[in-house]
């Protein structure tokens, strides 16, 4: 039971932070299918930086990890500018732009990882080895029955994510900027009439999405895979999109969806272990979150309302 909660949380929270980014982006009216690519590129930047500075720190020092998080944040933000440019400035189809960015991110990071490994580190390798981040257990709280597992064997990034999530929630729902952002997604003309620049709000929303996606990406690189390689593109970004869709583009229900994915996944793995099935059955378990997504979408899609102006190119002159 405890492992299910511990592993489930460490999968759900990075997913959640990406989904929050997606909510920001889509509530501002920009469709974001690029999360997958953004998280990969962010993780690449963070991992590259961590590998470069690793020699200046002791093996167990947590500093490279935190710096990697910072750089993943910045890297994701940088790459999201491409999405912003295509969608806002070049008025490209937002779905196409998202797909393009995913493909480009995958190709670029794979190429750069190999090239940098070969020319700087002199090794023929297609990954940056990072290791798994240290874990912490909160004394006292972890003794609580059942719920205590939440505070046991935490990755430090889970605390960071929780903090950022609270801030993101506050900004989106309780500040003037958050109001503008949500209005941009429903009625950009009204926002424009109120004297606020729609494209500026949307630019910030896309950048926030890129930054948070990058953060989520590096968390996966430091936990599940323990390295950066093309394995990072195993659909986390798309799961985040699915989570935010049946979270109805709201932050709290999205958290529920992410937790469901996380626990379905860790519960399935635990089941394979308990029943002592051969490891190839893990592939079947991996299907669980995706099947769940489809089922949930079948039940909830009708009731869900996407932001009204989502995916529409904002044209000041249109009436």
């Amino acid at each position: 039971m405890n492992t299910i909660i511990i592993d489930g949380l460490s999968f759900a929270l990075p997913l959640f932070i990406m989904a929050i980014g997606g909510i920001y982006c889509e509530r501002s009216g920009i469709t974001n299918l690029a999360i997958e690519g953004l998280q990969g590129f962010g993780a690449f930047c963070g991992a590259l930086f961590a590998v470069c500075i690793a020699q200046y720190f002791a093996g167990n020092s947590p500093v490279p990890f935190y710096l990697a998080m910072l750089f993943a944040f910045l890297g994701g933000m940088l790459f999201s500018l491409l999405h912003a440019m295509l969608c806002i400035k070049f008025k490209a189809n937002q779905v196409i732009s998202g797909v393009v960015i995913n493909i480009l991110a995958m190709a670029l990071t794979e190429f750069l990882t190999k090239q940098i490994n070969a020319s700087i580190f002199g090794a023929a390798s297609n990954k940056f080895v990072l290791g798994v981040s240290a874990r912490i257990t909160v004394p006292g709280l972890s003794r609580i029955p059942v719920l205590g597992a939440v505070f046991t064997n935490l990755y430090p990034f889970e605390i960071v994510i929780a903090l950022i999530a609270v801030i993101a929630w506050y900004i989106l729902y309780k500040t003037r900027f958050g109001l503008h952002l949500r209005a941009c997604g429903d009625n950009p003309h009204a926002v424009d009439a109120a004297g606020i620049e729609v494209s500026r709000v949307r630019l910030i929303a896309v950048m926030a999405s890129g930054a948070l996606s990058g953060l989520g990406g590096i968390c996966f690189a430091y936990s599940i895979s323990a390295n950066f390689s093309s394995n990072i593109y195993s659909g986390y970004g798309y799961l985040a999109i699915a989570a935010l869709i049946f979270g109805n583009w709201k932050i709290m229900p999205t958290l529920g969806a992410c937790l469901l994915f996380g626990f379905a996944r860790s519960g399935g793995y635990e089941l394979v272990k308990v029943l002592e099935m051969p490891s190839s059955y893990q592939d079947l378990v991996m299907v669980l979150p995706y099947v769940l997504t489809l089922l949930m979408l079948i039940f909830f899609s009708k009731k869900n309302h996407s932001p009204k102006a989502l995916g529409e190119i904002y044209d000041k002159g249109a009436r």
Partner: protein
Amino acid sequence: MTDTMKNKNNFLHKLVLQTIGHEKRQHYMIPVFTILLSLLFGILVIALLGKNPLQAYYNLLQGSGLAPKASYAGHKGMITDFTSFLNALTPMLFAALAVLIALKAGLFNIGVSGQMLAAGFTATILIGYSDLPAVIAKPLVILIGFVIGALAGASVGYLKHRFNINEVVSTIMFNYIFQNVVSFLINTFYVDPVSRQSKNVGQAGRLTLVDVVIGDYKMDIPLGILVAVIGIAVTAFVMNRTTLGFEIKAVGSSIRAAEYAGIQVGRTRVLAMMLSGGFAGLAGVTYYLGYFASIQPKVLVSTGYDAIAVALLGNSSPIGIIFSSFLITVISKGSTYMSSTSGVQAEIASAITGIILLFSACGAYVRYKVNRWKDDRNN
């Protein structure tokens, strides 16, 4: 702005207008521009890496059998490289058709890779491992490929129509489901313990004739390319000359207008996705039972994603995708030879494809901008 800058700007405008300003020529001039820009970008990157870009590009052609290599192994030559290139081109043509038909209906089929896998795997276990004679097995493989792909595609269309589920999300979910389920089935029942892939299919069911001796050469002859050419012709005919094609295009341009015109939007979308999936299925069988003879578990091929680039670059026209799939396949097929002779990482091929895709996404903007300039000039 200083005078010289203004002059320069004017000159640039003129140059751009002369080359891609002509509206009739725009539909192929803009993609050509896109490709040239991307290739230039590639040259820049390769040069920065300290390698000779022209040499690298020439290697791409050599690897695809379009230019002679310095030396060949026994029974190999430019012609064998070229038939092997056609072998790789076949699934790409089908996959691009799949993306194209969905695009025409305003839908995005990101699931081509997954549909390929589902169709290829089903055909492998039903026909590939059977003892049927070649005359029956080969048509059956094609039929099964189309049907399984069409079913997978139609279910995506149905989910969109009935439950309003975004096709991008559902195709991606299906991709992962197919990938993991097929991987599980292969590892449990059909694995070849040496190669860690699925066991090879028999020659009877394979859509590529392997090691055919012609003259002094031993070459692979892809039969699927004939089907692909027929597929392109049929698609062009359906799209331009039939009611179904008209309805698909109407739904793709404006759902509301199509509804007012009395077109059943839901039905048309499901049909379009079914056709799209069917072609993806054909891409799958020509890939897994043609170009290759086995399936690697846990891997989705990149063909389905590259096909998006091919379809966009080919201006979503059936004839256009012949040229664009040719180009993209040259880049991807030739990259292995390029990396072994020039020492440029093979991954640059997909990076260049990505850049091509990026530039073609801006195509609509370029057209809009150029036409604005032209209006300014005329006033």
